[in-house]
């Protein structure tokens, strides 16, 4: 145990507050559009692991980034995806889980040719 504690059995009492079982059947998924920092950080969603990746793109990714002027210019066939540090081509028909999205996974995507407002990464 690395924590210095008054109670010798401190470790027994710790509460892992963000375990998957606390999210009512969902898992937390983080999503980030690279080179578009007007969205200040990655965004978080509680999603069912069985959600197809295609549905994730349609129901989650698209509506949440639609406000950006670059959005209309995205060529979705060219998007580069990364799931937890690994570049991947997700199978759109398979679920988040089958595509390797775990609890608290980070999904990042790049849209080649689009580098934010006036190329400022905003």
């Amino acid at each position, binding site marked *: *145990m*690395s*924590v*210095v*504690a*008054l109670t010798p059995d*401190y*470790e027994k009492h*710790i*509460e*892992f*507050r*963000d*375990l998957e079982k*606390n*999210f*009512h059947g*969902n898992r*937390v998924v*983080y*999503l*980030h559009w*690279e*080179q578009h*920092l*007007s*969205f*200040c*950080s*990655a*965004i*978080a*969603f*509680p999603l069912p692991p069985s959600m197809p990746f295609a549905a994730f793109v349609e129901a989650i990714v698209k509506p*949440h980034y639609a*406000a950006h*002027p670059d959005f209309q210019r995205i060529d979705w066939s060219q998007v580069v995806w990364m799931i937890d540090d690994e570049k991947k081509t997700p199978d759109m028909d398979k679920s988040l889980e089958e595509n390797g999205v*775990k*609890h*608290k*996974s*980070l999904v*990042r995507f790049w849209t080649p040719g689009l580098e*934010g*407002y*006036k190329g*400022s*990464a*905003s």
Partner: protein
Amino acid sequence: MTAKKLGLKQRYAHMTRGLDWETSYQPIDKVFPYDQFEGIKIKDWSAWEDPFRLTMDAYWKFQAEKERKLYAVLDAFAQNNGQTGISDGRYMNVVKLFLTGVSPLEYQAHRGFAYAGRHLRGVGPRVAAQMQSLDELRHVQTQIHTISHYNKFFDGIGEFQHMHDRVWYLSVPKSFFDDARSAGPFEYMIAIGFAFEYVLTNLLFVPFMSGAAYNGDMSTVTFGFSAQSDESRHMTLGIEVIKFLLEQHPDNLPIVQKWVDKWFWRGHRVLGLVAMMMDYMLPKPVMSWKEAWEIYFTEAGGALFQDLARYGLRPPKYADIATAEAEHISHQNWAIFYQYTHAAAFHTWLPDAKHMDWLSEKYPNTFDKYYRPRFEMWGQMAKEGKRFYNMALPQLCQTCQIPMGYTEPGDPTTICFRRTQFRGETYHFCSDGCKDIFDNEPEKYVQAWLPVHQIFQGNCGGATIPDVLAYYRMNVGADNMDYVGSPDEKLWNEWQADKIKTAV
């Protein structure tokens, strides 16, 4: 013959030493169970020197005098409608952020020092900690009294205590103090007394109070002045704790160094809120955050760490990264609040052209390249009736709890993502500094109350934004959203119109 008057040093000795008791039927370790488990070794408690040598009778007299002056100014301010004399209605949002984010920390500091004052077995540091505990309680009271006058007119102030425990961004300062208060007494003293009070508090109290003065808020300046003399005493206590621990035993050095590293970084993150106040929220800016950082951290802090080098203590880890971040932090933080203004208990706005020129001048290497385009884009969108909001919840850093909006050192176009695994679970961080803190004590930080995850777990009033805002007790449409169009702005404009009429 009358008795000879005692000198200050003797008087202090009489008033502070010998106040403790020698235990007879209980071991002393049972009376003071908390001051050894952290591994700190103290050979001689009496070696503690309190440079202020303030005794309780002198303390009451001194503080009572300050109270009389403070409340005289507050009465005058209220009777003269001082709230109409501030620079601009937008200024008030600085005060809202201070009351919701900082004043409850004064109360937490009071509780923490009361605890340290009870649990240090040396009577010298115990008296000093108790005195500081009283100061902190006085500070929260004077701040509430001062700001309560503004609460009669402006929105977003009335539920500050309730909000402190619940609102997403207030978990940032709250978690800082929760972390410190759930540590041992020596770590607490280093966290608050040294890292926060000595190394970083100048950045809060000096430029912020200048900002208040420059923007006509004489009421806030007055509590600032009243608190400032206490702050210097607290800083002296902070430095005395460091010196005392380092002189007592060489084994204390690595422990203290680790605490200095940790609490410097945590303090730097919390003070990002002040960076945003300085650069964006003062209608009349006084100095940029970068300038303030150079004066109060690089120069003043640098000199301090040179002094401490003889004990083997080095400047905090990642001080260089924090200094590089002084270029970016205020812009990135203001961008966070602008896009989440629907969930913040104060108003936001875009900097106007003149203000952006000031930012360009203060940040010649970065503002025009990275941040001006962002604000111009949002300005354009607002003009088209498509004001930019972020309608999803942000990913938060497990340690500092701030949305993960900070960029890689040396690359302002890429978000800094760090993560670690602990017993099969993934945790995310905004920086190497925050990751290190977690990795040193994962058992502590897996228990962090992260607002976004708590909302998803159903612990914050419901699943929709209105549910969560009701849980915060936010008066929607008044406390939150843009300054332009707010009741605050309407009231401010009426006051200005009245002034013009009077002058005609």
